[in-house]
């Protein structure tokens, strides 16, 4: 060992200088003159249902203090002396924790590991070689170090988080550990870390700087280019021992070793059950390893402690943004270092189960309690031994005397209190009870009774979840109905499904299956089943033509009592990971029974996706024109996907509609002269041919940081129909090319960002190959007995194709987005909850020049019949303007929107509608106000838009109080008042009119109580 040497000396006056000291017997971290082993913990506070975006430090002080009181007391009792925190912890709380509990904080700057704002533009993948990126990261580190300067309780600085793994992982989720690589980018990463360490030393002479490496990957590079680092900090998951890690680190760098993460999960992936005793066994052996290799204990002598991963379970780790309420049991990566549940070819690391405490559900204030697992008690006993006042024999004897199974009774008792063993297999959840009463009336001309009518609705929802075997999970959602109100202004709602079909108003079908999900994990595939439950599309996984559609329909599924979607997905794993299959009677709303298969694989940089869809029958449901039935079809698609630098090239081909080959269709050609039946057209009949089933699409995108550009060109044969393009390329443009056949199109959009402002114009040029048919009446001559067929707009049921959203369009869109919080993507699906900051907003202006008309849409009649409209409205331009605003200031959150637009109905009415309005949702602690006002707008239902039914005024207001602050997609208990006022006229549904009356009023007011458990 080297002679006594001070490797690091305090340079400024500070309450507690911290330094690394090396001597003959090893290395120690010395704090205020005393050696201190780091008994550390990766600590966070994230209630169940929250994820990485939860802003704990943004809560009121009283909330934070109460949460800290629970956890820090337990940590202190355990013997923990340091927590690891990212540098989002306000410095005053570092001091508070230290002052009240004597626990230090290791402050960790991420150095762009999960992205960083570069010149105001969020950049997910940092280029460590880019001087602009490097400067941005170092500038931010400098600001951070200055914030914590001189603060009590700071122990040391940490840089990054497994940043070397980020060079090879494809997402921010944990993946299989990469093998030692030779990524040339590693040199740039570690030179940056060296510069960062030098910067910290320059600004803060009191605290050492540690890496937070992924194991000891790139140790040779670190040795050469990263000499400024004081401590080799590393996240290590090698099982019960670090093996030769201490020696290798010491020989390469001469630095002490600090585990910045290590531990074991508490779930046995092989047996499919919680196993806290096994977890405790690993942690005990890992700490024995540290003690043996600490100063003076006979080992290498450079172990200075570690931060156990982690304090409590992270329920958000799998998927990160979804299923946050579920304690996911999926293992996401394999690791043979944990042999008790390792099976070759399978994953065994359960990311959501690494806590040494288990977490309870939150109370009404948002606090939760923790139940210490056996690991807590084992480590509490282990830490009782002073690592620097002992011998190697004493270390062995101490650790030999700690028996995890002997301490397991404490956690077992706690677990038995919270749930019995049998309830782990079957449990009730998401119980929701709704009680709603209202009174409504209207002036006679509305068709509504003038005398007030009262109505009540009682509705109950509950989920039954079961895990009958390992890897098998199912959920059944039930709805039961008491009364069903018959006086509602908004006359379609889910509970009506319980009413008798004879229109008597009797409740006959009280109980129904509201939805269902099932998931089965097998070695080579995951099977998912769904009924009236949403699933995502495959647009980001190679489905270039949108064959497999997303099924998040919001309230429409309930409003129209849809019986779908219903189907299954098979996701290949392991050797079959390139394959996916979806099949079922209705895999998206309105779909025919079908099966879709996908093969998607990358060959080097080139991605190849091949898909085939086969409709097995005709027979989609017809509850709403939002989901019109389709004719039986067959589709095959191929995609080549190639990134070239900052560009991405995608080239796709589609063959679709081959069952239509040979079908007759008609079209018209303009002629000089009278034409057929004096229409000015020739009338032509033709047949679908093979060439009409072919489509091609090419897309080029460029991501140059502050500028992003998209160019797309498509050709679709007459019947070459794909689906909707749901891929959001950086911005959620409204102007999209049709997925139907019978058109060619060119579109281009660019997004230019300057700080928080993004300007994103887009243009679309789309033309049908065969235009819409006009309406020309048929003619019969009684004298000659000759019938001259009329010309009518086509419809998708009666014709092989139709001109609808693929009508001729020259469109322009200007999208402006103001988003000062780039870390939360403005277009995220749950932005109502996630979008933070004093102000985020967008303005979307769209203009469509539509010089020609279209063919006929379909309508779903009250009796379920699907019929085409007899015609189509004339050609007409349309425009839409929408502004959305999000604001959070203290306890008040606002979400609002303003809109205006000119458009046509979906049916055959030629009356244009100039609509405008606004909506506002305001939350103040537990109080929510929701209001919306629509002027001259369609009613809320599909048939309103189909048949051009409008109201001059529609207003809705809702004021409610909840036991917790309102959250998106979370069960709530709320008591509320609601009111609704509509002004109807001759264009409104149900209008009966009266002499001299041009408009009339109808209203509804109600009170509701919703319990959520």
């Amino acid at each position, binding site marked *: 060992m080297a002679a006594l040497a001070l490797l690091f000396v305090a340079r400024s006056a500070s309450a507690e200088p911290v330094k690394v000291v090396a001597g003959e017997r090893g290395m120690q971290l010395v704090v205020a003159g005393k050696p201190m082993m780091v008994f550390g913990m990766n600590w966070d506070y994230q209630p169940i249902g929250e994820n990485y975006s939860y802003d704990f430090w943004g809560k009121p002080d009283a909330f934070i203090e109460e949460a800290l009181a629970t956890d820090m007391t337990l940590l202190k009792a355990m013997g923990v002396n340091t927590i690891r925190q990212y540098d989002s912890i306000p410095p005053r709380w570092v001091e508070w924790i230290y002052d009240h509990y004597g626990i230090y904080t290791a402050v960790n700057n991420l150095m762009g590991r999960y992205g960083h704002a570069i010149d105001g533009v969020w950049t997910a993948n940092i280029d460590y070689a880019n001087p602009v990126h490097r400067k941005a990261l170092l500038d931010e580190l400098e600001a951070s170090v200055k914030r914590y300067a001189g603060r009590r309780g700071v122990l040391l600085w940490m840089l990054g988080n497994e940043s070397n793994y980020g060079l090879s992982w494809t997402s921010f989720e944990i993946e299989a550990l990469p093998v030692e690589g030779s990524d040339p980018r590693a040199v740039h990463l570690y030179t940056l870390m060296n510069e960062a360490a030098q910067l910290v030393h320059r600004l803060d002479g009191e605290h050492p700087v540690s890496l937070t490496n992924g194991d000891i990957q790139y140790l040779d590079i670190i040795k050469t280019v990263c000499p400024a680092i004081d401590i080799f900090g590393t996240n290590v998951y090698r099982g019960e021992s670090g093996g030769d890690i201490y020696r290798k680190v010491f020989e390469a760098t001469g630095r002490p070793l600090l585990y910045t993460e290590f531990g074991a999960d508490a779930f046995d992936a092989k047996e499919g059950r919680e196993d806290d005793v096994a977890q405790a066994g690993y942690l005990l052996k890992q700490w024995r390893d540290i003690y043996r290799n600490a100063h003076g204990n006979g080992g290498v002598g450079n172990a200075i402690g570690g931060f156990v991963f982690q304090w409590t379970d992270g329920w958000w780790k799998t998927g990160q943004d979804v299923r946050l309420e579920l304690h996911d049991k999926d293992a996401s990566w394999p690791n043979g270092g944990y042999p008790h549940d390792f099976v070759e070819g399978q994953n065994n690391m359960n990311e959501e189960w690494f806590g040494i405490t288990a977490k309870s559900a939150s109370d009404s204030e948002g606090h939760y309690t923790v139940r210490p697992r056996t690991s807590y008690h084992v480590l509490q006993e282990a830490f009782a031994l002073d690592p620097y006042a002992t011998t190697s024999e004493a270390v062995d004897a101490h650790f030999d005397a700690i028996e995890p199974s002997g301490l397991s009774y404490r956690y077992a008792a706690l677990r038995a209190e919270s749930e019995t063993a049998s309830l782990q297999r079957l449990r009730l959840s998401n119980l929701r009870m709704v009680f709603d009463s209202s009174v409504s009336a209207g002036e006679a001309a509305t068709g509504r009774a003038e005398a007030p009518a009262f109505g009540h609705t009682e509705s109950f929802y509950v989920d039954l979840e079961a895990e009958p075997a390992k890897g098998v999970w199912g959920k059944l959602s039930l709805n039961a109905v008491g009364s069903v109100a018959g006086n509602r202004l908004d006359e379609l709602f889910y509970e009506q499904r319980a009413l008798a079909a004879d229109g008597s108003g009797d409740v006959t079908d009280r109980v129904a299956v509201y939805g269902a999900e099932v998931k089965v994990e097998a070695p080579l595939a995951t099977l998912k089943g769904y009924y009236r439950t949403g699933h995502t599309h495959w647009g980001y996984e190679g489905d270039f033509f949108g064959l497999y559609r997303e099924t998040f329909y919001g309230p429409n599924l309930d409003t129209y009592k849809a019986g779908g979607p219903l189907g299954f997905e098979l996701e290949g794993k392991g050797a079959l990971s390139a394959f996916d299959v979806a099949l079922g009677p209705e895999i998206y709303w309105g779909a025919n029974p079908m099966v879709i298969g996908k093969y998607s694989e990358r060959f080097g940089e080139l991605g190849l996706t091949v898909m085939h869809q086969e409709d097995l029958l005709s027979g989609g449901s017809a509850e709403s024109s939002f989901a019109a039935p389709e004719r039986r079809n067959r589709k095959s698609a191929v995609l080549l996907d190639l990134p070239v630098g900052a560009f991405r090239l995608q080239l796709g081909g589609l063959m679709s509609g081959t069952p239509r080959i040979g079908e007759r269709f008609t079209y018209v050609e303009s002629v000089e002269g009278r034409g057929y039946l004096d229409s000015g057209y020739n009338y*032509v*009949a033709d047949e679908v041919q093979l060439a009409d089933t072919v489509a091609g699409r090419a897309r080029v995108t460029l991501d140059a940081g502050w500028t992003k550009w998209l160019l797309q060109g498509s050709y679709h044969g007459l019947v070459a129909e794909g689906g909707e393009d749901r891929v959001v390329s950086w911005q959620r443009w409204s102007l999209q090319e049709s997925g139907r056949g019978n058109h060619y199109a060119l579109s281009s959009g660019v997004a230019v960002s300057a700080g928080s402002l993004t300007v994103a114009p887009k243009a679309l040029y789309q033309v049908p190959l*065969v235009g819409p048919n006009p309406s020309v009446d*048929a003619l019969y001559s*009684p004298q000659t007995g*000759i*019938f001259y067929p*009329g010309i009518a707009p086509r419809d998708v049921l009666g014709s092989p194709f139709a001109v609808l959203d693929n009508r001729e369009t020259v469109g322009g869109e200007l999208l402006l987005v103001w988003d000062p919080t780039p870390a939360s993507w403005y277009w995220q699906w749950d932005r109502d909850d996630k979008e933070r900051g004093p102000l985020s907003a967008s303005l979307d202006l769209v203009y469509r020049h539509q010089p020609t008309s279209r063919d006929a849409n379909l309508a779903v*009649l009250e009796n379920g019949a699907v*019929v085409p409209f007899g015609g189509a409205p004339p050609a007409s331009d349309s425009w839409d303007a929408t502004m959305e605003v999000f604001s959070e200031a203290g306890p008040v959150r606002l979400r609002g929107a303003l809109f205006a637009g000119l458009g046509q109905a979906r049916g055959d009415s030629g009356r244009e509608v100039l609509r405008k309005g606004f909506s506002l949702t305001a939350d103040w602690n537990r109080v929510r106000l929701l209001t919306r006002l629509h002027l001259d707008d369609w009613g809320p239902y599909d048939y309103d838009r189909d048949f051009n039914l409008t109201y001059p005024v529609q207003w809705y207001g809702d004021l409610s109080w909840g036991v917790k602050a309102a959250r998106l997609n979370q069960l709530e208990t709320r008591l509320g008042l609601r009111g609704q006022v509509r002004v109807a006229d001759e264009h409104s549904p149900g209008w009966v009119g009266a002499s001299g009356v041009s408009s009339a009023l109808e209203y509804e007011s109600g009170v509701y109580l919703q319990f959520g458990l």
Partner: protein
Amino acid sequence: MRMDCMKSRWGAALCALALMSPLAGCLEAGEFVYGEQVEEQPLQLHAERVGIFPDRSVLDDPNNPFRYSWPTATSKWKIESAAGNVVAFYSWATVLAYEPTGEAQYYTALNLEQVYKNGQAVQEDLNAVKELAVAGYQSVLDNFPDAQSFDASGTVAFDLVTPSYLAIVALGETPTGDWVLVDSASGQPRAVRP
């Protein structure tokens, strides 16, 4: 590729790209549509419920001269008054498929009744034609209970459920669905559902 339908040079360029496909070989042009003589032929039933709402199989019947184009407001009455019962049946059944109304259903049933009475169907289908006529009238009662039609002047309305009810009885069957016949104020019978 319908080059004659392309309107722009851009379109032509993309068409050229598609034409490179070996699948875009010999595309035959369409044929002009002209008027055709509609002749009365014996009725051959194409499907079990042809002409009964919501059945639309008449649109697939190769014997239906109107399957590609439904007779519109004026021509359907001309056909009703001047063409034979089989042609009139096809006309009204086609109208019913495109625009389901009680009027279309009634006249579909009426012409089926006439086809039956005049023996204008193939022998083996005659009984089925009668049953279809009854089903058609019943469909008026079941699906279009408020249906009305107008006389030749277009101003005098008359309900269609009463003649439908009476027609079913005249064909020797009993209407279903709780319909009864009562005397109206004018002394004329009227079908109502209590």
